[in-house]
Structures are given as C-alpha cells and as structure tokens.
C-alpha cells in the first residue's frame, strides 16, 4: 500500500478515548433491528388474558367465543401449558430460610396479582389475538388481598400461599460490633422512617420475544429482547425439557433494559411453550399497560433508621430495619431477596463506624412482582444513610461536608472490609468529595442559597456519597444454585483480510458494550479499531457467559477481551515469525502491521499474514500450525465484587406554595477504575442519574387498597422528560483495580445509586428554614405540602 509508513514506532491504544459506538450509524438511520421488527414465516401472535383482580380464584373459563373469531388459532390455559412447561421457584440456597411458591407460565386455579397472565390467545395477528382475549369469558371469585407490607405478617392477614405457612419470603439479621453499646454511649440519637415507593423500568421498547420451534429437529430458536441469553437458554431447556444445545437464544438490538430484561417472566415462558406446543413461531410483545402490570417493579421499602453520634458529629453506630414488599412470588431465578439484602449490607459502607445492626424482612403481597432493577438496593441504602448524615449535620449545626469527611473510610484504611463483610480494595471518597466541591463551586452555591432565602426563594443543596457493587463473581448467584454465569468468554478470529472478529458473552443494550470491547481488542491485538467487528447476543456462536447486568460488562467482558487480544497477538506473531524466519519476540503488531519490535520497521501486513496462514500454509514449516482463532475466559477470583465509589450533588428549588421541586443542576464525581471510553462512562452516569431523579420526584406505581394498579399509562405514571431534567456535570477519579490487568470496574449503576439520596437531601436543605422535612419518595408536591403542614 502506497500510504503505509515504513516505520511504526509505537502501537495505538484506544483505552481512554471517546470512540463513537459502531452501531450508532445504523440506529440513527432507523435501521436498528429490535425483536418486534422481525417476522418469521407462518409466525403467530399471542395476547394474554390477565387477571383483573389482585387475588381471585378462576371458577371457570370459556373460550368458545374467542375461538369463533376467524384467525384465532388456539386458546391455551394454565393447566394445558403446565404439560409443556414445568413450574419454577425463585429461591437461592445461600439465602437461608428463603421461600417462595411454585410459579407457572399461566396461572392455575388462582391469580395472585392484577396483571398475572391467565390464558393465552394465539392468532394470526396481534390485533386478532387481542380480539380473542376480549371474548374469553372468565368467572372469578375474588379473594382477600394482601397489599400493605406493614400488616403482611399479622396473624389476621390472609396467607397468599397457604403451603408456605406465612407471607414471609426471607428474613435476615446482620450484626457488626455492638450497636447497643454504641447507642448507650452516644451524645445524641436520631430516628427516622423512610419510604421508598414502588417504581419500574419503563424501557421504551417493551419486553418482546419470538419463539420458533422446529418439531422435526426439536430445536427452539428464541429472539429475545434480553440481557442474559445463556441464562434464558438454560432455563428454557430445563423447563421445556429440551436438551441445552437444542435451544438457541439470540438478542438483536435491545431497546433499553436496566435490569427489567434479565428475569423470567411467565408470559415469555408461555410464548416459548406455545411455540413448542404448536410447532410454529410465536411472537409476544408487551403493550404499555402490560409493561406496567407485569414488568418487574422495584424498591417498595419502609426503612426505620437510627443513628448514634457524638456531639462533634462522629458516627458511633446505626440500626436499620428494612421491610420490603415483593409481590406474590420471588422472581426466578435471581430472587426478590437480593434487593433487600443489598440494601442493609450497603447502607453503612461509606463510613468507618463499626457498630451496626440491621434487620430485613421481605414479604409477599398481591402486587406485581418486585425484583432487581438498576442499582439494586443502592438508592434505598444511600438515601437512608445520607439522609441520616444530613440530619446529624443539621441537628448539631455542623457542615454536611465535614461530617462526611470525618466519618469516611479514609485512604490509609484500604484494603478495607465493611461492617457487613464487603471487601473494598481501594476507594476514593475524600478525593471524590474534594473534586465535587471544586467542580460544583459548592461554597459559592451555599452562599447564593443563603442570600436567596432572605428573598423568600428556597433552594437546597444535597450531597450523597455512595459505593457501587460491580463486576460480581460467583458469590452472587452461582453459589446459591442459580445457573447464571459469572465468568465470560471472548473469541477473537483474525480474518484472512487482516480484520478481527470478536464474539463475546457480554451483551449490548445501548451502554456501548460493542464500542468498549472494540477499543480493548484493537488496543490489545494492535489493529485499527475500524478493523474490529463485535458480535454479541447469540448463544450458538458466542462463548458461554453471563450477559450484561450488575455493571459487569467492562470489568469481566473487558478483561476477557483484553486477555484474548493478547493471546491472539501472540499467535499472530508466531505465524509472522515462521514467515519471516525470526523469533516472535523480535516482532510486534502495531496498527494492523507486523513490525520489528525494536525499530518499528514494517515487516508484514496482517492481510498478507492471513493470506499465507489460510490459503498457502504449504509455504510455512511442516511442523507449524497457525492458530488465528483464540478464546479466553475471565472470572474475578480475588474479590467477590469490584466496588466503586463516588458522590453526587443535587441543587433544587422548592416552591412552598405549590410543593413543586425544580431540579436546577446535578453534579457527580465517580471512580470506576480505568476508563475505557470517557464519553460512554459520562453518558452511563447521566442516564442512570436521571433514572434516580425520576424515582426521587416522579415515578410511582400507585395501588389502591384492593390491589388495583392506578398508574397503568404514561399519563398516570410520570417519567422524566427533557424539560424537567437538569444539566448534569460529570467528573472522575480513576482508581484502577489491581486484581485485573485492565484495571476496569463497572459504571452502569452509580448514577441511580446516589441520585435519590442527593435529591432528598437537597429538598430537605431547601425546606429547613421552613421547619419541614421529607422522608418519602417520590417527593411529589403532595409530600412536600404535607411536610409543610399545608395539607393535613
């Protein structure tokens, strides 16, 4: 090539560069391929009859009128589908004493939440299937409902699943040090109750699945808007009684996930069972009402917190009691106990006090099942902890910045094990705080706030420090018996033309997994990033892996790609050395060329190497075999999780007349270890913060006393839109992990972890001169006006 330089003195690293995501152009042209965009030959559509009651017995079901509609193919009930698909129980063995009832794809005998699928109508179009649903006649016998977690364990409350004995799914007590002694010796003790309302993910693309069963080979191919294709493959195989290798799960473009699309949903299992039953392809796409009724909900906690302090603001101890309602079933296979477990384990982790006692009770209720959603447990934990820290500062007349600083786990304390047993390799609370104060011009804003108060303008500033659990090893699910991979693999193939194909088990839902992996691969192999193509989301071709959740894509998938890249480079150099009759260590791969490692002199183009290796291996030594496809795997072995940390600051203005909270600005300084793509990390933080802001101010799944969901449309359930959202300023500290060569940790959930606590503290800062304080989210105008005493 004419423009090839004679020498390449050094390779190019893409780590730390804001590379544009490879799929951006396709998505911007409207050429994304989401699951609902696919259509298969003779594909049928399913719509579900869902329970209109929160708890009711199915007395009878008459499908004759539905079957009379031309184009309606079949109406299937729970009893019939149970013969195709076995039931499941959402428990994990390492949660001692945890229990849940067997759940089926379609309710049998009894429906336990409003929205539970009861019958499936399969038709030639979705519209016809919905026509059929409208004509299925069901006679219901309503049963008493359990809605309020506070009374779920009372002896007078009906038990949702009599075979379980009570409505308690899981209970846990944690003790570190001697909390009673700390409280006994404290100058001051403060108590509060926090309520964190139910909300949900509202992915813009609803859940979607197409199951295609070929009876001749008994093979099932599933196109699924999902985060963890191997998990789905395993579960489908076991519950549909198919060999593992007969099930292939393919994830095309996924229109947002956030932990919504990582669970087993009865309607999706039913769709796959129907494909097996009918020997046809069947599509299910949730509509928005179905999404609100059947996507997992999140949070729903009542936390009683007590903090013991010295008069100088030193925290001596804390007690926490978390009660959380999870709907009628613990969700399979990750369970609905992880959220509460993480809440009480994470709560004290930012601070150094040791005396801590916590109790968790996870209870059943007749509402939509609750499970892991972005930042599992974190937003609850840090709203409570940081809410209490600000309370301490206010009561004692101390600076909230200094109270944090004097109680932090500090730089010289690492490695550090938290009160609840979490291992922190190295965090950077003090550095993040200093950086945040400078970035936000915090002191000037405090002065401005104080000046405006004299004019009747109520602004507030709220800090929220946090840690984020990322990059989990097998301690999360595997040890509890769930077949969810914590390791991930990467396969790299040098194509004959010199490009590199990357196939991996981590998946892409918009985070930028593909770009991040291309950067790591291009840097570690030594090729231009344009020469790397990444394929994710296909269980037939990708190495076995966990997918994308718990901020594991970069920490695990990135490290696997790094190790694979190094291995491929080594193999390329062995081929080159054979061709050039020298030693591999005399050579290097830089910018797509094999060069002399000492001088940088270009010796060989990778396309020439590929030509020889694939088409003229006869010209290589007879005892030499080239290996230009390599696979490596990675699992974190040296720590259970790679914890990250950061701090957020919210700036709000509260109108005491209307109770409206206006978000003025938001800042975050976060430390996710070595940053692969700064722009992508910034945008993960911003998007996650806005999800936290929605939870703090707007989003709420509201139920009436009968268990009826009152917020089934986007007109009733408020999501953050552009006009209400502030600009978000992002800063970074980089503390790479030393346990993995890349130094990468996760960044996907930090924003959501801290935003609700920051807003809570900002609102309370604004309300402080009015003598009011809120501890309930979402902080709607109603909540503010009640705190002010305007509303009774």
């Amino acid at each position: 090539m004419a423009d090839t330089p004679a020498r390449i003195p050094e390779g190019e690293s893409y780590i730390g560069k804001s590379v544009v995501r490879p799929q951006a152009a396709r998505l911007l042209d409207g050429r994304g391929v989401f699951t609902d965009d696919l259509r298969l030959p003779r594909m049928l559509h399913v719509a579900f009859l869902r329970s209109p009651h929160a708890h009711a017995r199915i007395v009878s079901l008459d499908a004759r009128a539905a079957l009379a509609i031309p184009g309606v193919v079949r109406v299937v009930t729970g009893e019939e589908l149970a013969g195709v698909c076995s039931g499941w129980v959402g428990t994990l063995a390492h949660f001692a004493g945890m229990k849940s009832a067997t759940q089926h794809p379609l309710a049998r005998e009894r429906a336990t939440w409003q929205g539970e699928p009861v019958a499936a109508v399969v038709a030639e179009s979705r519209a016809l299937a919905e026509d059929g649903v409208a004509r299925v006649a069901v006679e219901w016998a309503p049963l008493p409902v359990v809605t309020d977690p506070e009374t779920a364990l009372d002896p007078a409350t009906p038990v949702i699943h009599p075979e379980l004995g009570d409505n308690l799914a899981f209970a846990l007590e944690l003790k570190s040090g001697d909390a009673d002694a700390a409280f006994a010796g404290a100058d001051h003790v403060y108590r509060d109750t926090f309520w964190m309302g139910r909300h949900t993910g509202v992915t813009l693309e609803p859940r979607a699945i197409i199951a295609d069963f070929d009876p001749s080979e008994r093979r099932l191919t599933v196109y699924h808007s999902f985060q963890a294709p191997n998990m789905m493959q395993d579960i489908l195989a076991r519950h549909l009684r198919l060999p593992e290798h007969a099930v292939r799960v393919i994830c095309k473009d996924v229109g947002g996930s956030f932990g919504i699309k990582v669970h087993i949903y009865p309607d999706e299992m039913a769709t796959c069972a129907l494909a097996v039953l009918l020997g046809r392809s069947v599509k299910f796409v949730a509509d928005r009402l179905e999404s609100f009724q059947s996507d997992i909900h999140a949070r729903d906690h009542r936390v009683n917190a007590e903090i013991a302090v010295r008069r100088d603001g030193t925290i001596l101890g804390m007690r926490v009691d978390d009660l959380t309602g999870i709907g009628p079933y613990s969700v399979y296979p990750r369970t609905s106990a992880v959220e509460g477990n993480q809440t009480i384990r994470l709560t004290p982790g930012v601070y150094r006090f040791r005396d801590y006692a916590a109790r968790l009770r996870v209870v059943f209720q007749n509402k939509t099942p609750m499970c892991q959603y972005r930042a599992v447990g974190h937003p609850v934990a840090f709203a409570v902890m940081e809410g209490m820290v600000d309370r301490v500062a206010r009561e004692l007349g101390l600076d909230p910045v200094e109270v944090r600083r004097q109680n932090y786990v500090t730089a010289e304390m690492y490695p550090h094990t938290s009160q609840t047993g979490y291992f922190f390799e190295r965090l950077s609370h003090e550095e993040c705080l200093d950086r945040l104060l400078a970035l936000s011009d915090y002191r000037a804003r405090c002065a401005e706030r104080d000046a405006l108060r004299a004019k009747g303008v109520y602004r507030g500033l709220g800090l929220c420090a946090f840690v984020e659990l990322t990059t989990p090893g097998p301690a999360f699910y595997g040890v509890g018996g769930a077949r969810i991979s914590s390791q991930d693999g990467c396969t790299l193939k040098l194509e004959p033309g010199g490009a590199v194909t990357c196939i991996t088990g981590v998946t892409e839902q918009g985070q930028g997994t593909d770009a991040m992996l291309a950067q790591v691969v291009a840097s570690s192999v030594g090729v231009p990033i344009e020469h790397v193509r990444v394929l994710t989301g296909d269980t037939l071709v990708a190495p076995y892996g966990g997918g994308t959740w718990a901020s594991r894509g970069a920490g695990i998938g990135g490290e696997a790609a790094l190790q694979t890249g190094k291995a491929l480079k080594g193999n390329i150099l062995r081929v080159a050395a054979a061709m050039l009759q020298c030693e591999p260590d005399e050579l290097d791969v830089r910018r797509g060329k094999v060069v002399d490692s000492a001088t940088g002199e270009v010796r060989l183009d990778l396309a020439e190497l590929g030509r020889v290796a694939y088409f003229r291996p006869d010209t290589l030594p007879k005892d030499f075999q080239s290996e230009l496809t390599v696979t490596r795997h990675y699992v974190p072995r040296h720590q259970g999780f790679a914890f990250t940390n950061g701090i957020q600051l919210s700036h709000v203005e509260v109108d005491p007349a209307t109770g409206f909270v206006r978000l003025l600005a938001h800042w975050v300084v976060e430390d996710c270890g070595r940053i692969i793509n700064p722009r992508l990390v910034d945008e993960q933080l911003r998007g996650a913060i806005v999800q936290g802001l929605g939870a703090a101010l707007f989003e709420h799944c509201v139920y009436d006393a009968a268990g009826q969901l009152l917020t089934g449309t986007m007109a009733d359930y408020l999501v953050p839109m552009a006009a209400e959202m502030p600009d978000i300023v992002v800063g970074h500290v980089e503390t790479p992990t030393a346990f993995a060569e890349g130094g990468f940790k996760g960044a996907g959930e930090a924003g959501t972890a801290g935003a609700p606590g920051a807003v809570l503290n900002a609102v309370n800062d604004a309300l402080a001169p009015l003598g009011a304080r809120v501890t309930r989210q979402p902080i709607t105008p109603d909540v503010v006006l009640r705190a002010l005493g305007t509303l009774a």
Partner: protein
Amino acid sequence: MDAGEAIDITVTVNGVACRRRVDARQSLVDFLREDLELTGSHVGCEHGVCGACTVRVDGVLARGCLMLAAQCDGSAVETIEGVAASGTIADLQAAFAVANALQCGYCTPAMLLTADALLREDPGLGADEIRRGLSGNYCRCTGYHAIVEAVLATARSRREARGG
C-alpha cells in the same frame, strides 16, 4: 373492537405512492411497520405520550399511534428511513453520534425528526427551548443532556452555514 371494514387508501410514503387496503382500526404506525415493513418508527406506549412513533404527515410531525392509517389517504408520509436517505438530517445524525446522544436507539428516529422540526422552526433556539421542544419524546437511556448538546451543536452549525 373487531377488525370491521377495510378501507382502500393511497398514500405517498417517503416519496413512493402506495395503494393498500387497511383495516379501519389500524394505526398509522402499525401500517408503516407491518404493511410497509418500515420498522424505523417505533411503538412505545400507543397512547400518544412517549413520542417513539413520531413521523411527518404532509410535512407536520404526527404521532403514528394516534392517527389511523385510513386518515392518511391522499397524504404524504415521511419516516426516518426516507428522511435519513434524503441526507437532510445528516448533520444532526452526526452530532448525535459524536455526543453519544443515543444509547439503545429506540427513541432515536423520533427524537431526530422532532429535533429537526425544532431546528427548522427556529435555528436560534437555546438549551431551555430545546428541552421544552423535546419534552414530548421520552428517552430512558441518556438523561437528555447529550441530546440537548447534539441539537445545540447542530443549531450552531446550521446558523453558521447560513452565514448567521
């Protein structure tokens, strides 16, 4: 509601005239996606809030879920596929890519059409006006900051191109 009567319509979609028989109840976005296989327009809520189905009808933005296909008889409809191919929003698309103003990409086609309409109406608009103008389009991934940044950058470059 049952399928009811079928209606013959002639509609120009992305410059191509097409004649189809549609169910009276079929929405415009379902017609585009299912009958014409133009899957760039997305279905998010089907009740006019999320904005993912936004298309142009006779040059004006419309919610594809709140309009029936039959109402478009005789109209000219433009979708992301046609608008992208025209090259008229290439600058906006490039600005979105650089700012990472899209993550999953599901809201993106409608967001682009809405942003382009705002820019055509007033290329001098500022961040607050952009936020208000985009507030009928829901994005769960980005938090909007990068979208506003990309639209502002395009406004700037369009003003400069016009010598403003």
